[in-house]
């Protein structure tokens, strides 16, 4: 925490900032009277869910609001000078030199047709900081500083030749190139795997200390903010809900919204968000395994056709007891999605045996496979993509019943209505189409569709990952309630260990298609059986607070 505040003016002082967007008819206010300040060398986190106005606020500071956005009032003071109404030409001098940006998505934030070297040297060239050989040397030393191996090689490479984490390092190199006073990091790691996320945040921290730069960290993840920020600004609906030193806000939140946010953040809650497995379940005999996966192997032919096939899943085995939740955990490319596609019968495994409720999947074809599908249902990650935009909610939920047309129309309707109210959707939503629903509501519809056939097993493929944390908490509550009432078995696929710890009974950890760890969730978390699992657990953000409380 900065104590020199009195001596030097704050790097950034935002006062009563109001921003609105024009949607073609009228202006809609997205940010209302937001005020906060950032002292030299300080990290301030703007925390909020989607629609909170955090990104809009950050964009306005660097003068890069979307074309239909405008600042209605208030001031943005950089070192005491109000830049809120500066022209592009005035701001061009400040951007990059005094304020810089680390963007959200490293995959699309670098120009695909220019080399890494050209894109890093560009910022130096624009501000006339270096030229010729000095320029080249400086670019290489910058790339080296952000931890890229073989910087001389990277200079000549194109973005697609680098991994996501490496690209984000390049973007950080660009952001720190001119040692700016303020770096705006807009969700800098939300597109990255957890272990990479941790290393990138460490790097930002390190460079900040080295250069004495202030950081405005925009994030939806309270855990990340708790770990990294000196002070928090909690936004909701474009208004500041709470503002203060991180430790104080987390220990004694004053606003109801912040309390909700803290309670719902999976990385903070020590208690499991789950009805504990009853003695009955724990004691159930092992022949009560409803999902048996044994030596699952899945090969893919490489698209370029040469070389041997790519092995996405290599010898995966696990069993899931009826009425429990089994989590499959891994980072991108670990083979978790491939595995569950084989388990729900969308894809024939190369080798291995999958048995669902006593049925061996490899024996199923055509109509028998279709009949089997009522036993196991899948809920997708993205509720926007998994619901047909042209159907009404009622049609979506009633369709599976139609497919197995045993019920007459009135019975079908009654069943669909019952299941919709069971997942907590209002009657009024029945005639709506998916685009008129919120993300949480859409996922409820997807869950209702999965449950309407009374399946034994529900596979949840990152089913809560795309949701805001408070919405996510409600959906997790719903899932738990449904499991308890209907005796469902869940296969829960996730990259988020904090959520997994909350809701699952058993867990399999996958890396590069292989099972590296598995067993009861408490055992795996307390006594990880592999270095990789340990690394994953350590990378869960928000542990500073966990230690603090």
């Amino acid at each position: 925490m900065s104590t020199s505040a009195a001596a030097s003016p704050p790097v950034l002082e935002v006062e009563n900032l109001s921003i609105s967007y024009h949607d073609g008819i009228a202006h809609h206010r997205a940010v209302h009277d937001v005020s906060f300040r950032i002292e030299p060398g300080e990290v301030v986190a703007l925390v909020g869910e989607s629609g909170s106005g955090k990104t809009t606020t950050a964009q306005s500071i660097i003068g890069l609001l979307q074309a239909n956005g405008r600042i209605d009032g208030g001031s943005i003071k950089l070192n005491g000078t109000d830049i809120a109404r500066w022209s592009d030409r005035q701001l061009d001098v400040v951007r990059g030199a005094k304020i810089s940006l680390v963007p959200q998505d490293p995959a699309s934030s670098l120009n695909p047709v220019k080399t890494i070297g050209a894109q890093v040297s560009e910022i130096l060239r624009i501000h006339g900081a270096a030229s010729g050989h000095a320029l080249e040397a400086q670019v290489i030393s910058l790339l080296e500083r952000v931890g890229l191996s073989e910087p001389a090689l990277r200079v000549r490479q194109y973005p697609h030749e680098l991994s996501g984490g490496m690209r984000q390092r390049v973007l950080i190199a660009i952001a720190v190139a001119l040692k700016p006073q303020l770096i705006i990091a807009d969700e800098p790691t939300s597109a990255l795997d957890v272990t990479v996320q941790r290393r990138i945040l460490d790097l930002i921290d390190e460079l900040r200390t080295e250069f004495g730069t202030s950081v405005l960290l925009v994030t939806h993840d309270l855990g990340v903010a708790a770990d990294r920020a000196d002070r928090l600004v909690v936004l909701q609906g474009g208004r500041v809900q709470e503002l203060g030193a991180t430790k104080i806000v987390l220990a004694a939140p004053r606003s109801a919204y912040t309390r909700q946010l803290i309670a719902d953040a999976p990385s903070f809650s020590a208690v499991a968000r789950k009805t504990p497995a009853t003695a009955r379940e724990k004691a159930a005999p092992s022949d009560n395994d409803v999902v048996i996966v044994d030596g699952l192997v899945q090969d893919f032919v490489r698209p370029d056709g040469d070389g041997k096939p790519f092995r996405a899943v290599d010898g995966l085995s696990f069993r899931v007891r009826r009425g429990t939740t089994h989590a499959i955990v891994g980072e991108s490319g670990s083979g978790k999605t491939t595995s569950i596609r084989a388990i729900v019968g969308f894809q024939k495994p190369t080798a291995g045996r999958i048995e669902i409720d006593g049925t061996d999947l490899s024996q199923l074809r055509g109509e028998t496979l279709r009949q089997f599908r009522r036993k196991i249902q899948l809920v997708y990650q993205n509720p926007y993509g998994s619901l047909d935009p042209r159907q009404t909610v009622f049609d979506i939920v009633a369709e599976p019943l139609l497919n197995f047309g045993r019920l007459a129309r009135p019975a079908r309707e009654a069943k669909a209505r019952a299941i919709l109210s069971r997942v907590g959707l209002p009657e009024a939503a029945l005639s709506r189409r998916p685009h008129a629903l919120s993300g949480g509501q859409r996922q409820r519809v997807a869950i209702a569709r999965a449950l309407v056939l009374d399946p034994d097993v529900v596979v949840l493929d990152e089913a809560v990952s795309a949701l805001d944390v408070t919405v996510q908490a409600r959906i997790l509550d719903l899932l738990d309630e449904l499991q308890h009432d209907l005796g469902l078995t869940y296969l829960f696929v996730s990259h988020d260990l904090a959520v997994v710890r909350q809701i699952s009974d058993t867990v399999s950890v996958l890396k590069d298609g292989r099972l590296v760890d598995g067993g009861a969730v408490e055992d795996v978390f307390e006594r990880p059986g592999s270095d990789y699992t340990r690394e994953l657990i350590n990378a869960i953000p928000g542990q500073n607070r966990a230690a603090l409380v």
Partner: protein
Amino acid sequence: MTTFDTIHDDVIASGRGQRTGRRLSLPLLMRRLPPGLVLSWLVLGIAFLWAVAPWLFTSYNPLEGVGGEQLRRPDAGHLLGTDALGRDLYARIVYGAVHSLAGAFVAVALGLVIGIGLGVVAGSVRRRLDDAIMRLVDVLLSIPPLLLSLSVIILLGFGTVNAAIAVGLTSVAGFARLARSEVVRVRRSDYVEAAFGSGGTFSAVLWRHVLPNSLTSVLGIAALQFGSAVLQISTLGFLGYGAPPPTPEWGLLIAEGRNYISTAWWLTTAPGVVVVLVVLAANRVSQSFGKVAA
């Protein structure tokens, strides 16, 4: 930007004016409709009425001239003047609408039906047939459209219907390719997989999900193709391969007016302006379909 996905998850999302059209009040709807679009519908509506009931719009005979009224400049009596035989140009344009529009309609319908048929089959079946159809489409695309329609005209002979068929065949490849790519796109979507996952049969999923979702944008393109077909048919008419004289087909009107280019400017100008307006209107309407679909 203004969608709040917060604790009040169950409050219907309000945002970005995404409500469906049905729930809009009429004044609001009027305010939201761009004037250009309204004008475009108006132009197409008038052209359509010209085609179905031309006698409502003019009392002159389009085929028989009046002696002594040759090559009159536009005035109150003859809104757009008269031609070398004393025929009222406005009447000829009104009566000509049916030839140009019906021709374009036949052309688009032909292209649409064959193209969608090929595209949907290619997009939904196994690789062999898909490959065969798409190679055929490649071949059709490799012959410049005008040359393809000229070849068809040599085969079938001159005439309105033959010109329409010739133009229609040139759009088959484009429609097929678009329909296939849309079907493939929709088939890859999660909701189609989910429909199979909930026990849908191939034909049920195709009928309930794939066709409705993939054909929306194809129909949007059909409106665009309509404008283009009007242009192509008038071009064939101008070259003399369409309707024979004295049919007042728009392209032919311009070709006939060309002989008086130095003395009677209205003979070429007026029909051309009408063609441009109709094509512009069709394109504008097609664009609005595209937005709805997206």
